[in-house]
């Protein structure tokens, strides 16, 4: 059992949880993820690790209530326990001195971008970050991203905060302004990552995206998380989660992530029946 030691509400139905998991805290590197299972009946759900602390042996994960499992997790309080937490899984982000790195976070995708921005800066890069959200109250981790970056841009789709527009608008502007970009890291909803990859493609700028497919074991056994990368089948749990954005078949990923929409609805109805009505927006577990 894994104890929750801290719970912070970031915005509506978005929380950061600190969970006691000493070995994972010690081991994890930027870009890696865990799989959690709430209880005996629970699903195995992947979540990116946002931060860790060796002092108190905790890892931080950001969760958005999007389905039954994330809903149950978001209902937990400090002192409660999660049945299973396993990790750190996946390959760490490719960190090196590229010169200038642009880190793009869309929605709660900003959470997994944060440790990468930190590591990229520690590796001696100039880090320009762009974080975007639909509206002002959904902008998260602005202060943390500011600290982790050399330069920060904030965008909102509705113009209620920061730059009015999309993250890709700023990215395109940086390119047009002649900024020499060595690498772009883009994490967020699939359409956003796809758009980021399309912006950089003509300029052949190395673009890493972090994929979040459905997983079951997450340790290289079941093959649920396969995606087509450069025409070949790759397994996100052991080969990823980060891949060259110019090679990813985003259309296929989008369809595969919708595999169980009907079942998710049934599961939610069960939950609603047992625990009273709740309101959810559809998305996957990282809210992408």
């Amino acid at each position, binding site marked *: 059992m894994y104890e929750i030691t801290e719970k912070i509400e970031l915005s509506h139905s978005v929380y950061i949880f600190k969970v006691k998991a000493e070995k994972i805290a010690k081991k994890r590197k930027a870009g890696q993820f865990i799989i959690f299972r709430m209880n005996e009946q629970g699903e*195995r759900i992947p979540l990116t690790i946002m931060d860790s602390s060796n002092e108190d042996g905790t890892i931080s994960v950001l969760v958005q209530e999007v389905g039954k499992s994330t809903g149950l997790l978001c209902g937990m309080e400090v002192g409660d326990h999660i049945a299973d937490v396993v990790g750190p*899984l996946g390959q760490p982000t490719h960190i090196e001195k590229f010169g200038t790195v642009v880190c793009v976070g869309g929605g709660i995708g900003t959470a997994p971008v944060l440790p990468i921005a930190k590591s990229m800066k520690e590796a001696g890069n100039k880090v320009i970050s762009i974080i975007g959200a639909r509206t002002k109250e959904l902008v998260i981790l602005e202060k943390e991203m500011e600290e982790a970056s050399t330069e920060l841009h904030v965008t909102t789709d509705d113009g209620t905060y920061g730059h009015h527009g999309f993250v890709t608008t700023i990215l395109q502007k940086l390119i047009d302004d002649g900024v020499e970009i060595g690498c772009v890291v883009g994490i967020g909803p699939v359409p956003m990552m796809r758009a980021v990859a399309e912006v950089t493609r003509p300029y052949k700028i190395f673009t890493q995206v972090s994929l979040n497919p459905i997983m079951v074991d997450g*340790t290289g056994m*079941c093959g649920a998380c396969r995606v087509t990368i450069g025409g070949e089948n790759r*397994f996100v749990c052991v080969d990823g989660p980060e891949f060259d954005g110019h090679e990813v078949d985003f259309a*296929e990923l989008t*369809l595969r992530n919708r595999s169980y929409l009907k*079942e998710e609805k049934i599961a939610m109805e069960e939950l609603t029946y047992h625990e009273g009505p709740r309101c959810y927006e559809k998305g996957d577990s990282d809210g992408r």
Partner: protein
Amino acid sequence: MDAKETKERMKLPRQPMGEQPAKERVKNFYEVPLGYTPEQAMAEAKRCIQCKKPLCVGGCPVGIDIPWFIKLIEEGKFVEAARKLKETNGLPAVCGRVCPQEDQCEKVCIVGKKYEPVSIGRLEKFAADFEREHGEVMIPNLPKWTGKKVAIVGGGPAGLAVAGDMVKLGHKVTIFEALHVAGGVLVYGIPEFRLPKKIVEAELDYLVKLGVEIELNAVIGKTDTVDELFEQGFDAVFVGSGAGLPNFMGIPGENLVGVYSANEYLTRVNLMKAYQFPEYDTPVIRGRHVAVIGAGNTAMDAARTALRLCPEEVSIIYRRSREEMPARLEEIHHGEEEGINFRLLTFPKRFIGDHEGRLIAAECVKMELGEPDDSGRRRPVEVEGSEFTIDLDVAIISIGNGANPLIQQSTPDMNTNKWGNITVDTETGRTSKKGVFSGGDIVRGGATVILAMGDGRRAAASMHEYLSTGEW
């Protein structure tokens, strides 16, 4: 036993095993064979002629003293029979159910030369079940701690065999299991109706009572590496990390929604209990027309599992003919009884999806058998112009596995072959890295529970020798 008695015994009829009727059992996940009654078991045991040089023992990958345990059953000493079994086989209730006895002990049974062989597997199952159900499981006296600590990577059949042997030899044993429950393929792969999970739980419970520690959610290669296990004070490591990533065919449409690997499909249903969705949270697409590609034991497990999720049709698609099907005859027979449609000499060329990327059909082609290939089996060749389409909303690919890369990636000084399987000395299970042993599917690339257990037992013997002498 004189010649006359031998002759009489050989003429005794083989005791039939009661089963749930096919029509009933496809509606549930309960075990299919009902098991012998004590009277039946004693009658079947009487068919054993107690050979002076029993061939059956040589036919068993772990060398169980088969005539001895059968003799005990004949005398009504069921608990003693179970204990005799456990001297050489830590998991008799499992092996009695899932071993391919017809290719091992029962294949070489002398009685079987003229009549039907003694039902060794059913007797093994009977004795082990009797001991468990009558609360007679005995914890043997263990020797004093040797001062040595052993780490086992993977709580599947190979690892459990090593754990049982090593703890009985006085070593401290810790199993590191990646999933949230130990048992490996016994819990994620083999379906409930073939191996009830309460039996696996009882076997794990027995090991824990012997003092084996099981650390769950520990992915060696990630949470800790093999080298870190040594740093933490373990004196030897056994790697039994099991089957790796599933193979796919590389045909168009394989990533459509509704196309599963057998590993994923079985894991969802068995380990995550998707057949009890939404009581359990993990879903599986049930489908109306289900096809399993492949004809091994895993394919049969997947097909028979699919049948129990109430589709209109479940078929096995296999490119060769019935004779070449690698699954156990008993499994094929069970599948036929339950109504699986065998589309033999057939192979899919592509999967077809709808606008939402969901599988709706497969285009298949007829095959015919040509000249024998390297494996000695006749090579299937496409019949030109024989393409046809079948409706399909779930396809389960069951054509084997590659190697799991996690341990190798993090243990570069341990040799693997070109497919990523760990290379070992087959007699001792020793790898190229000092103190590290390996066995089961991560070495063999896909075999059976009992072969993995045999690997584990040989590795344990060699590990004990290494820990006693320090010689590598």
